[in-house]
C-alpha cells in the first residue's frame, strides 16, 4: 500500500530544498486542543460584547419560557446537521538564515448529515482536506513560493499562520507561532464548515432546518446568512463563554444577571428569553435539555442557540419556542460516555463529527507517513 501522505511529503521536500529542517523529536506530534477551546472560540468571536441588554423577541418579554418537546415523529424540523473537526500535528521547524517557522500538518473536515424519516442519518456532504501551516513572514519569497507551488501541484492546502484572521488575532502575537497555528487550523475548518453550510441551506425543503455545531458568529458565515431572508439555520453550542451579563427589567426593577445566575433558574424544558448580539443580526438564547438535578453543575445540560436575524428586528416568540421544543427532543439519544460534553451534545452532530474523524488518517499513519528523514 503506498504512503497515503506522499503528497504532503512532496510538499515538505520542496520546502526542504530551500530551508533547513529541524524535525520534531520522534516524528509528527499531535497538537493538543487548548482546554475549553469551544468556550474560547465563543469568546474570540464575540469579544466586542459582554453585556446584553435587549430581549429581542416579541410578544413575550419574560425571562424564562416553558417549551414542550417536539420530536421527529410530531414534526420533523431539524433535518440537516453540520459539524467540523480537525486534527493537527507539529512536524518540526523550518530554519532559513536566522529566521524560523513551525511547520504543522492538519487534517480538517466538515460533514453535513441528513436525518431520514425513521431517525437514521446519512452523510450528505463530507469534505476532508490536508493542509500545511507555516509563517510566510519567516520565510523568503523563494522558499514560500516553492512550497506553495508543490502544495498546489499535489492538491493540498497551505496556510500562512502569520496572517491575522477573526480567530488568530486573539491568540498570542507573532512570537508564539505554534499557538497561532491552533487558531489558524480552526479558522480553516470554519471556512470549510461555511462552505458546506451554505450548500446545505440550498438543499433545505420547506419547513426543514439546518443545525450547525457551534456559533454562527463566524463573520464570513454570518454575513452570508444575513444576505438571505430568514435563513432556516441555527447554531447550537455545547460550550460557551461564561462571562456575559444580562440586563433585564426596566427602571427600579432592572437587574443584572451573570450567566450562572441566569442558568441556575433555568428549569428543564425551559428556555431563556432571546437576546440580541451584533446589533441584532444574531439572536441567541439558552435551552435546558436535561434536568438540573441529574447534572453535576448548573451550566450542564444547557445549550446556547444562535439564529441569524437579517432583519435585526424582534423575532417571533412562537418560532423561538418551537425551535427550542425541537431541540429539547434532541436529548434522545446521547453519546454519554463517549463525549464528555454529552449533556449538551446533539447526537446527529456527534455522528457528523464521527463521519469526519473516521475519514481522517490515523495517528499511526500520520506519524509513520510523515517521518522526516
Amino acid at each position: 500500500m503506498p504512503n497515503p501522505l506522499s503528497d504532503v511529503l512532496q510538499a515538505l521536500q520542496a520546502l526542504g530544498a530551500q530551508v533547513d529542517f529541524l524535525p520534531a523529536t520522534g516524528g509528527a506530534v499531535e497538537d493538543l486542543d487548548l482546554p475549553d477551546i469551544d468556550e474560547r472560540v465563543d469568546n474570540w468571536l464575540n469579544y466586542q460584547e459582554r453585556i446584553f441588554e435587549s430581549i429581542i423577541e416579541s410578544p413575550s418579554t419574560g425571562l424564562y419560557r416553558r417549551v414542550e418537546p417536539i420530536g421527529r415523529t410530531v414534526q420533523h424540523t431539524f433535518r440537516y446537521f453540520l459539524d467540523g473537526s480537525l486534527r493537527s500535528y507539529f512536524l518540526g521547524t523550518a530554519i532559513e538564515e536566522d529566521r524560523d517557522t513551525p511547520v504543522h500538518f492538519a487534517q480538517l473536515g466538515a460533514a453535513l448529515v441528513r436525518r431520514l424519516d425513521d431517525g437514521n442519518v446519512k452523510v450528505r456532504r463530507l469534505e476532508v482536506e490536508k493542509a500545511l501551516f507555516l509563517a510566510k513572514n519567516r520565510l523568503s519569497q523563494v522558499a514560500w513560493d516553492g512550497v506553495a507551488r508543490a502544495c498546489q501541484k499535489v492538491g493540498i492546502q497551505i496556510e500562512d499562520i502569520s496572517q491575522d484572521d477573526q480567530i488568530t488575532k486573539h491568540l498570542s502575537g507573532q512570537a508564539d507561532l505554534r499557538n497561532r497555528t491552533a487558531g489558524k487550523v480552526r479558522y480553516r475548518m470554519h471556512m470549510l464548515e461555511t462552505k458546506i453550510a451554505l450548500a446545505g441551506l440550498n438543499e433545505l425543503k420547506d419547513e426543514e432546518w439546518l443545525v450547525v455545531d457551534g456559533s454562527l458568529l463566524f463573520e464570513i458565515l454570518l454575513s452570508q446568512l444575513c444576505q438571505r431572508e430568514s435563513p432556516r439555520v441555527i447554531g447550537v453550542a455545547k460550550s460557551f463563554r461564561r462571562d456575559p451579563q444580562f440586563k433585564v427589567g426596566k427602571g427600579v426593577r432592572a437587574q443584572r444577571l451573570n450567566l450562572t445566575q441566569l442558568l441556575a433558574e433555568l428549569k428543564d424544558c425551559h428556555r431563556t428569553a432571546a437576546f440580541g448580539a451584533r446589533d441584532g443580526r444574531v439572536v441567541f438564547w439558552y435551552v435546558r435539555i436535561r434536568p438540573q438535578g441529574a447534572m453535576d453543575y448548573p451550566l450542564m445540560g444547557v445549550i446556547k442557540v444562535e439564529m441569524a436575524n437579517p432583519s435585526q428586528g424582534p423575532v417571533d416568540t412562537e418560532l423561538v419556542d418551537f425551535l427550542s421544543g425541537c431541540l429539547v427532543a434532541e436529548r434522545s439519544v446521547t453519546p454519554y460516555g463517549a463525549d464528555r460534553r454529552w449533556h449538551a451534545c446533539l447526537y446527529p452532530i456527534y455522528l457528523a463529527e464521527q463521519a469526519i474523524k473516521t475519514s481522517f488518517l490515523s495517528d499511526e499513519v500520520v506519524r509513520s507517513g510523515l517521518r522526516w528523514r
Partner: protein
Amino acid sequence: MMEEESVRPVIGLASATHSDPNTSNSFSFWLTPGVILNPFDIVEAEQVAHYGTSRTFGIVTTLEHTTDAPTHLTNFISSNFGDVNETPNTQRQGTMLARVAVLSNDKDIYMPVRTQAPIRFATPEGIRVALGIDEVPEAYRIPAGIIQMSNGTRAVAYLDRRYILGPEGAHVNITGISGLATKTSYAIFLIQAILQRAQAEEIGVIILNVKHGDLLRLDRPSPRGLSAEDYEMWEALGLEPKPFTDVRYLLPWGKDTHRTGQPNSFLVPADLGKVNLYAYSLQDTYDKLDLLLSHVPDPWDTLGALIGEVTMGLSDPNTGEWGPSGEWKDVSDWDSLLDGPPLVDEQGRAKRVKDVRPESVGRFRRIMRRIVKTRQSGLFVKQRPKIACNLSKEIAKIRGGETIVVDIAKLTDEEQTLVFGDILRTIYRLYAESAVEGEELPQKVIIFVDELNKYAPAREKESPIIEQILDIAERGRSLGVILIGAEQFMSAVHPRVVGNASTVVVGRAGSAELADSAYRALDPEVKANITRLQKGELVLSHAIYRQPIKIIFPRPTYHQEGAD
C-alpha cells in the same frame, strides 16, 4: 462468475478492527440493514488469489448487535433518564455484526479476510465447496440432511460413505433431547439414505427397538402419507420416500406367550410371516452369563470366576458347544443350575466351586434368581419351544439388503443388555473370528441402538458389555461392523465409543450437558446455538467438515407410532 456475483446481493462488508482482527480461522462482518442472517448460515467473502479472486467460505457462529453506546447507562440516560416512552429523535448508531468461522477457500488461500471485503450468502455450489463435499466423489456421497439458510437457499449436506461405513472412519453417534423420536427418526432416515445410495444388497441392518412399538412397522407406509414439504425434501435429497423392504422382526417371548402365542411387545407387526419369536433357555445363555451380569459390580472378579466355571462346566470339552459333564451333568435348565449341584449341596446351601467361596456362589444364585426367575419378563424359559428361535443363530443368518428389527422394549435392563450384547458378540464373531470362505455375509452390518448410555456408560471402567461395544467401536471400522448409537446425553456414554464415531449428530441439549468434556470439540458459540435448536433440527459434525453444520431432515416414510 462475475455476472453471477453482480446479481447476488452483498449482505455486508468484512470488518477488522484494532482489537478484533480477522484471522485465518475467523472473520467478522457487519450486515446491511434489513438482511436477516442466522447462526449456521454459510457465507462467502471475496478473497485475493494469485490470479483473479478467490472465495473464502465461513459459517456464521454468532450475531451481535453493537452500538456506539459505551455503557448501558448511556442508553438509560438517552431515554431521558429512564423514561420508557421517550422516542429517540435520532436512531442510535448500531450494526449487526456476524462472527464467522472459516470453512475453506476455493483456492486454498487462508489469508485473513480483508476489511471491507464484500460478503454474500453462499450458493448451493459454494456450500459444497465450503464443506469439502466437492472433493468427495459422487459415488461416495450419502445425503444426510438439508442445510436451510436464512435467504431460502437450500443445499444437501452429504456425508462421505468412506467415513460412515469404513474404511476411513465409521460409526455415528446421535445425541440430544430434541423431542419425540427425533434421534430415532434421524437414525432411520440415515440408514435409508445409506441403503439407497450404497449397494443395499451388500449391507445388513440390525435395529433394536427400545421404546414402545416405534420401529415395529418399518415396512409399513405412514397412513397419513407425506406432507408436500417432506416430499420436497426427500426429492431434494435425491432419495425415494418409501418404507423399508425386506424386514424381519424378532420379538421376545413373554410370560403369557405359551398360552396366547403373542410376543411380549407393544405391538405385533401386521405381516406375521416376517415375525420370529426369541427366548433364552439356559442352553442359549450359558456362554453369555457375563453379559447378563454386566451391571453387577464385581470388583474382585469373584462373579467373573464363577461364570467362567459355569460356562466351562456346561460346555462339551471337545466341541465347546452345550454339553454339561462331570459334576455339571445334571444341569439342564435354570432351576437345576440355581438349585442343584454343583452350586448347591443336599441341604440346599451354596457350595464352594473350585476357588469360589460359598458366599460368592450364594450371591450369584441370588442375583441370577432375581434376573431369570422372579423379575424376568418371560424371556428366560425352562426349555425353548420350537416356535421360539435362538437369537444369536437368527442374527447370524443376516443377509445383505435385509433389515432385522429386534424388539427389546418390554425387557428388563439385564435382559436388554443380554440381547444387545448377544447381537454384538454374534456379529463381531461372525466378522472377526469365523471369516469362513464362501460364507454369504453382507459386506457391512449396521447396528442401531437407542439409549446407548445404558450399555456403555461413561463412568463405568469395564464390563463385558462395554468391552463388546468397544471392540465394535474400535475395530468395527475395519471389519465392516458399523454402530449407530443414540442417547439423550453424550456425557453419559463411554468416551471411547463417542470418540470413535466419525459422525456426531447433536440435537437440542441443555447448557449443563454441553459443558461436559464430551462436547469439547464444539466451539462455545456452536454450543450456545445447540441449546436453541428446534425439533427436527440437528447439528451435524462429520469427519470431512471443518465445522459442524445445522441440518433439517424429512419425516420418515414408515408408519411411526402416533401417526394414526
